[in-house]
């Protein structure tokens, strides 16, 4: 009898504690997935409140009342924190990666299952600690997800800069620990647990991006953990890593001396730039994978894609200063960071050409995952092309900290990343839940989201070009900003429509989980190893029957073959 849900299988087999604290990588993956889902719902709600407040400041929200200026900045902070950490740094890597890395490698489990379980529960505690910040005196922090010192270091600098900021730092500290543990697991699993015949160059590109992302996580999150501890100490233990002497805040002298606010920025962005690649690399891997499956063609330039992935990872550590061109940093440093940032555009462009090359000449199946993958490429091109503009200090002087930057990173990281998550969800849903998602609903959701993403973020560039700074809670403080209100209104209306359209995805997802059409083992006719197991897989996965791999991962439409796909573990003679 085919199992409908892995959760049911677990309930039958084990007691409550073992069920909840399971070390099964598939369940841990699903736990991360649903945690991210909760985070994205909160994060999206916050952005809706922000957009409404900007253009209708006197609007009364049910249960919340009128949004105050300090609330707005708290929403900005928590929206960024939830989305960057608990959505984009969680579901692509720890959600899908945990579930599918071992399966795609032919392994029966991750290298360290208990570490895996520990990582999830730490992340969950981190999430709860973060949400708790809303409910303490002063509320959540208002310093943005970037938490620049001294604003983040001095409790009297604003509401939410007291307990709310301490909770933020503790939450992020826990998140860093969980990420480092997970990274160790991913790296070890990829190096040691590939099954027979699964050489490095036969790994699906998803595995390559999970691997490089894990290395980035290991190195970057450890730095953020250090920085968070230093800031907690400045706030609570009398140290002054980030505050100079002579500070006067709200009429009160602040007793710090000897520190540098720029040090926080260097530490934060040394983490923060690799972080954006952590957020988007797994999505790139999924896109490469899905464009191949649904074009029925091998990935165009597999080797080049591997080299580009590694190059992006490596260069990603050398460009952090492009967030600091006007920070007071020595202008000579600007030359180096600008050149290195331009360098990273090259492997990104190579990937884009190869995605187009994969689609070219393909026999395309226009499924929902394919649509979202094509959408990823489109959004990546649009968001990516404003990168070289911001990479030039001469132009960044004007555009830094304006809505131009907000448009840039929302297109290339948030929207593209989100599209890859939607694509991956539709694609792997049958494997995870044994049912298919609804195609018509999926396509409708795609159209609203694709057109909506452009309607929101393409005009937003003009706000920045007109000089509209970021993180303004009202439009009424600066005259030239007031004049931009009609454009802000358009963006808000587009956002309301697009966000409403996401209900289609939620409806499709949850309805399909219980009532979707039954899925076969390999409904998409995909070549990689996870599709050799039942949908969903038995809890032991491959068990002791290690698959033997004889073929590369993207052998579609091989001339002369019977079918247009060749499973990786098919006999060697084929």
């Amino acid at each position, binding site marked *: 009898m085919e199992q409908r849900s892995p959760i049911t299988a677990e309930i039958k087999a084990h007691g409550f504690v073992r069920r909840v604290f399971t070390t099964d990588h598939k369940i841990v993956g699903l736990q991360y997935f649903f945690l991210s889902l909760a985070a994205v719902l909160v994060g999206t709600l916050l952005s809706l409140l922000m957009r409404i407040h900007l253009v209708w400041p006197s609007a009364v929200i049910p249960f919340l009342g009128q949004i105050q200026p300090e609330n707005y*900045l708290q929403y900005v902070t928590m929206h960024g924190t939830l989305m960057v950490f608990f959505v984009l740094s969680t579901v692509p890597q720890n959600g899908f990666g945990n579930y599918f890395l071992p399966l795609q490698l032919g392994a029966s489990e991750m290298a360290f299952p208990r570490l895996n379980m520990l990582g999830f529960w730490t992340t969950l505690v981190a999430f709860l600690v973060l949400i708790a910040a809303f409910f303490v005196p002063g509320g959540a922090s208002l310093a943005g997800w970037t938490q620049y010192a001294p604003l983040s270091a001095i409790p009297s600098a604003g509401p939410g800069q007291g307990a709310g900021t301490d909770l933020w730092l503790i939450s992020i500290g826990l998140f860093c620990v969980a990420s480092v543990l997970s990274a160790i697991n991913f790296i070890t699993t990829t190096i040691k647990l590939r099954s027979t015949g699964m050489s490095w160059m036969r790994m699906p590109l998803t595995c390559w991006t999970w691997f490089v992302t894990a290395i980035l996580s290991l190195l970057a999150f450890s730095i953020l953990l250090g920085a968070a501890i230093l800031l907690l100490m400045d706030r609570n233990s009398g140290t002054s890593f980030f505050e100079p002497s002579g*500070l006067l805040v709200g009429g009160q002298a602040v007793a710090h001396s000897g520190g540098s606010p720029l040090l926080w920025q260097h530490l934060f962005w040394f983490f923060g730039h690799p972080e954006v690649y952590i957020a988007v690399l797994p999505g790139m891997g999924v896109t490469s994978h899905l464009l191949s499956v649904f074009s029925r063609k091998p990935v165009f330039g597999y080797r080049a894609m591997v080299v580009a992935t590694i190059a992006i990872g490596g260069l990603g550590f050398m460009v952090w200063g492009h967030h600091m061109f006007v920070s007071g940093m020595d202008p000579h440093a600007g030359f180096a960071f*600008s050149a290195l940032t331009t360098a990273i555009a090259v492997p990104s462009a190579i990937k884009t050409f190869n995605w187009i090359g994969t689609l*070219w000449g393909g026999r395309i199946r226009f499924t929902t995952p394919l649509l979202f993958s*094509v959408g990823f490429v*489109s959004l990546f*091109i649009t968001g990516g092309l404003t990168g070289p503009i911001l990479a030039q200090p001469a132009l960044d002087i*004007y555009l830094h900290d304006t809505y131009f930057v907000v448009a840039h990173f929302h297109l290339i990281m948030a929207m593209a990343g989100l599209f890859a998550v939607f694509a991956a969800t539709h694609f792997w849903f049958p494997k995870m839940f044994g049912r298919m998602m609804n195609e018509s609903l999926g396509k409708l959701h795609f159209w609203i989201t694709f057109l909506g993403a452009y309607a929101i973020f393409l005009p937003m560039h003009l706000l920045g*070009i007109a000089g509209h700074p970021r993180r303004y809670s009202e439009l009424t403080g600066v005259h030239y900003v007031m004049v931009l209100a009609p*454009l802000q209104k358009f963006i808000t209306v587009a956002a309301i429509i697009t966000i409403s359209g996401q209900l289609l995805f939620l409806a499709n997802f949850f309805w399909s989980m219980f009532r979707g059409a039954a899925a076969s083992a390999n409904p998409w006719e995909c070549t990689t190893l996870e599709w050799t197991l039942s949908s969903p897989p038995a809890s032991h996965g491959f068990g002791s029957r290690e698959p033997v791999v004889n073929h590369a991962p993207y052998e579609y439409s091989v001339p002369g073959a019977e079918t247009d796909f060749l499973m990786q573990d098919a006999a060697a003679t084929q």
Partner: protein
Amino acid sequence: MPLALLLAFLLITLLGIYLFVVHPWWFPSAAAAGAGAIDHQFTLALWILGGLFVVGQLVLALVVFRARRKRSATYSHGSWRFEIAWTLVITALFFWFNITGERLWSEMRIDQPPAGDSIQVEVTGAQFQWYFRYPGADGAWGRTDAQRLAKPNEGNPLGLDPEDPAGKDDIVSTALVLPVGHDVDLTLRAQDVIHSLFIPAMRFKQDTVPGMDVHAHLKPLQTGTFEIACSQLCGLGHYRMRATMRVVSDEEFKQWLKKREER
């Protein structure tokens, strides 16, 4: 579906072209030396990157559209010739573009006019107000100690030390008044958290960081009134931390200084 995708991509491309070519909202007109060069660089960026945007979206759309009726896919693992070709083209294009920008950066921040010729103004950001201090006739700024001397409501927001004679003729203003056509050497400071002085019409932005004195040059070329905004999140009042820059004739500037010194 493939037709719908093609049409959607066309729509998006047209929207992009409309927004950046017709630009219903755009830069304020430039009023400072060096601003023209920045605007020229941005126009170059629009041509190159905007061109790539249009080509990229349309190629993607056409490739997908053309593949809709294929009976079997082309089995190809790629082409090293293509990889090398497009890598070289993109590298050359992006680095050439980058170097033009680096040259501009050099002119803006590395090649500075000799110190003696510039008008000196000190800018201080404090939650949520900008202060502009002129050294007065003696050309020297008085000592400040905000922690000790800047008491609320005493009219000494920078904490000027009354014991320092150099500070007697200092002018502290909440508006930035400057004579047209002269280079200005701004010394940027902050009293509490990081702020950022942003003057769009001058294409000027510089963060003001507590504990640091950052120098940046500015040369207004047109008279008029221009708005200053804060562009680094500094707390609750960040959205209203604005100031006015007034660029006036030489004569008017001298008179303004004299009037302020007499107070």
